[in-house]
């Protein structure tokens, strides 16, 4: 189920009403069922994977906790990580890296069932598998490192894994942050409703008005870069930078807003990333739940920066490349991760740095925008065609019929982002005079109703 689908607008009030109508002791079960319905709406068969992952980590964590012997603890951890990563590999990477290769195709040519299974894996990517797999893995790791006590109630743990607002595209929550909140007895509170609706409203605006409108320009450019002049290619490339931000930021806001209605605080996943004054800063502002995950569970266990310079460079490269691979089975994602690693290292070792913060911000923005080409392109050929067309090699002459008001809306979005500073949107609005606040609300609602992209489109990060 998508947040921007009609069915969600029926689902949410029903879940809200049901949740607060039920006594506290049954709420976990109700939200768990609702979460499974939310996920299963897309394809119920893949609930089996979530259920398997849940049961696996539930038992592994208990075994880790109960075991006294470090070796045994390590073995249970290895089992949990191995199976989780194995499932992730099977559904997300197996077909691309192995199943589609010629020798595998030749080997299974006469084995119809195996061939069908491999083709099935190639076609079927469970929505949000990377998100919930990382969330459950962080739980087992936290228990292993004794940063968290395991949850002994299977249903409660299942709810932590599958909590619907953040199930399919994050934020990737930590057990210690989310699970305790899920257990709290809450009642309907006006401040929660206000904050929740504000976040949802802004989230829908950002997704449906900004991201979905930019989609047409971006798709047109990437589908046929040689058709358009270099400046349209440039616009398309940087339009994607805003599209993906608006799409993912919009999702995160809606997720936060929905959770807030139930009294749950989800972590902030973005902090105005295009105002970053360096790559290091960018990664502290972009997809924060993932970058902190890699920091805590990959970078630091690898030794972080308390190692030799060569090892540290290797650690940085590993973390960024893994981050690229996390996004999908394609060499372009690896290139995207590698490019960010290169940026990071250049920034770190560069003898000179621009003294002006604005210049640093601009450099960062253009570097990140350029790297998005590899993220968006379906292969290196497309990426190189876009890059060439962007600098005037083999570009075309046709003009794209993008509606000019889209750039005005983008500007308004930019102004709102600048104006809110480090405040979250709900806090930002909360400080307004009611007239000003409702003027803003009506404007956002008007834009959603009248100016949103007319295509029904899933969130980009759903496929990760």
């Amino acid at each position: 189920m998508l947040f921007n689908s009609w069915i969600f607008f029926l689902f949410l009030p029903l879940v809200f009403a049901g949740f607060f109508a039920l006594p506290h002791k049954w709420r976990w079960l109700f939200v768990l069922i609702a979460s499974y319905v939310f996920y299963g709406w897309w394809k119920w068969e893949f609930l089996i994977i979530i259920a398997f992952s849940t049961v696996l980590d539930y038992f592994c964590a208990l075994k880790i906790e109960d075991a006294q012997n470090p070796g045994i603890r390590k073995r249970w951890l290895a089992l949990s990580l191995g199976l989780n990563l194995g499932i992730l590999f099977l559904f997300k990477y197996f077909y691309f890296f192995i199943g589609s290769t010629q020798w595998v195709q030749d080997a299974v040519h006469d084995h119809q069932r195996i061939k069908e299974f491999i083709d099935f894996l190639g076609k079927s990517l469970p929505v949000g598998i990377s998100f919930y797999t990382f969330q459950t893995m962080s739980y087992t790791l936290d228990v292993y490192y004794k940063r968290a006590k395991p949850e002994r109630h299977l249903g409660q743990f299942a709810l932590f894994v599958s909590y619907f607002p953040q199930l399919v595209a994050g934020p990737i929550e930590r057990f210690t942050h989310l699970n305790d909140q899920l257990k709290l007895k809450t009642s309907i509170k006006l401040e929660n409703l206000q904050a929740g609706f504000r976040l949802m409203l802004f989230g829908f605006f950002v997704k449906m008005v900004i991201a979905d409108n930019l989609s047409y320009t971006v798709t047109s450019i990437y589908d046929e870069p040689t058709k358009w002049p270099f400046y349209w290619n440039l616009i398309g490339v940087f339009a994607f930078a805003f599209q993906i931000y608006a799409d993912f930021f919009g999702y995160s806001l809606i997720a936060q807003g929905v959770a807030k209605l139930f009294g749950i605080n989800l972590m902030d996943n973005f902090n105005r990333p295009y105002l970053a004054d360096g790559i290091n800063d960018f990664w502290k502002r972009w997809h924060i739940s993932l970058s902190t995950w890699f920091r805590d569970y990959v970078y630091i266990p690898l030794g972080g920066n308390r190692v030799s310079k060569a090892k540290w460079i290797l650690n940085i490269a590993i973390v960024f490349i893994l981050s690229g691979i996390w996004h999908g089975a394609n060499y372009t994602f690896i290139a995207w991760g590698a490019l960010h690693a290169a940026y990071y290292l250049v920034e770190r070792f560069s003898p000179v740095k621009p003294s002006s913060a604005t210049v640093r911000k601009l450099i960062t923005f253009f570097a990140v925008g350029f790297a998005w080409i590899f993220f968006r392109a379906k292969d290196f050929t497309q990426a190189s065609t876009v890059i060439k067309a962007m600098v005037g090699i083999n570009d075309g002459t046709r003009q794209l019929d993008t509606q000019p008001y889209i750039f005005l809306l983008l500007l308004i979005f930019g102004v709102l982002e600048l104006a809110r500073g480090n405040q979250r949107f709900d806090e930002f609005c909360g400080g307004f005079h009611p007239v000003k606040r409702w003027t803003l609300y009506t404007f956002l609602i008007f834009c959603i109703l009248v100016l949103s992209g007319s295509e029904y489109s899933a969130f980009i990060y759903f496929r990760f």
Partner: protein
Amino acid sequence: MKITFKYIAPRIFILLITVFVSAFVYKKIYWVPELKDQGPMLFNLKEFQWHNDVLYLGESSNYWVSPDDTDKRSISDMINDSINGARLSGMQVPAYHAGMFLPIIRLIEPTARVKHLVITMNLRSFDKPWIYSTQEAALMRTRCFYYDAPPIFNRLCATLGFYDQPSADEQDKKMLHCFEFDTLKVDFPLKFNTIKRWCEQEKFPLPGGGEDFPKRELADHYIKAYAFQIDTLTNPRIKDFDEMVKVCRQKNIKLYFNILSENTYWADSLVGPELVYFMRANRDLLVKRYTAMGAIVIDNLEAVPGKCFGEKNWTTEHYDQQGRMIIARHVAAILSKEMKLKPFSN
């Protein structure tokens, strides 16, 4: 702070006002330009229904012209030029079928000038590959813009996915299931009673072994397109055409179904007379059913000779200028008769 009626009422009021203003602004400023892309048939209808006596609703058959044609007019333009004293305009979008025409017909204003409707009845639109086409989700999305509801509501339906969205996989699965299990029941010996079995047979063996693959592929495609029997109880097109008859009767509009020409010559030579039998049987069923319901069925199934089909290597209802003219004259003659139009003096 408590949530009281006094707190909620003004907020709901502002929300309602916002929705109404948005609906008004959308209808006045954005709707029509958006229809041009998103709902092209309604975009045309809004204008055409006031300036025409007859509307011709079609798909790509009224769109396609051969690059060799000197006369590039569409079928509807040819009809318009062949009738005297009435004005006809064509509205066409590729891949449209009865399910797309029906909501458009519902939107014809009772006071509109148009009182005659010619709808293309494409035999292939009743077959499984078209019913389970992978384009169906996109068509259903477009159909949102044709609901008889406030334009902003229709737009929201399209934006929020309030329409059937069968995935390409699902559609393919259903189609293949029908190919395998839908049996053809006839009162003469038929060697292969499902599409799957029929397609599996060797068809064009080559002297040195193997098969003439391009020919076989085309023959199989013909079988998939025409080897079916319309089930009047389950075929969605029948439901839509039936509804069209009802709607037109209510609106006092005379309805003409134009059964388009299919390449029976190729069907016969590639597959055999059994396939032509199914084409004719389906045509007969449609003629009988809709004549009985009061519509005028114009049978052009075999009117266009094989040489006039634009694409020789696929099943399409795309005709060259001669083919289009044959159909246009036939339709024009029937329209003239029904509308009691005078023939041209020359």
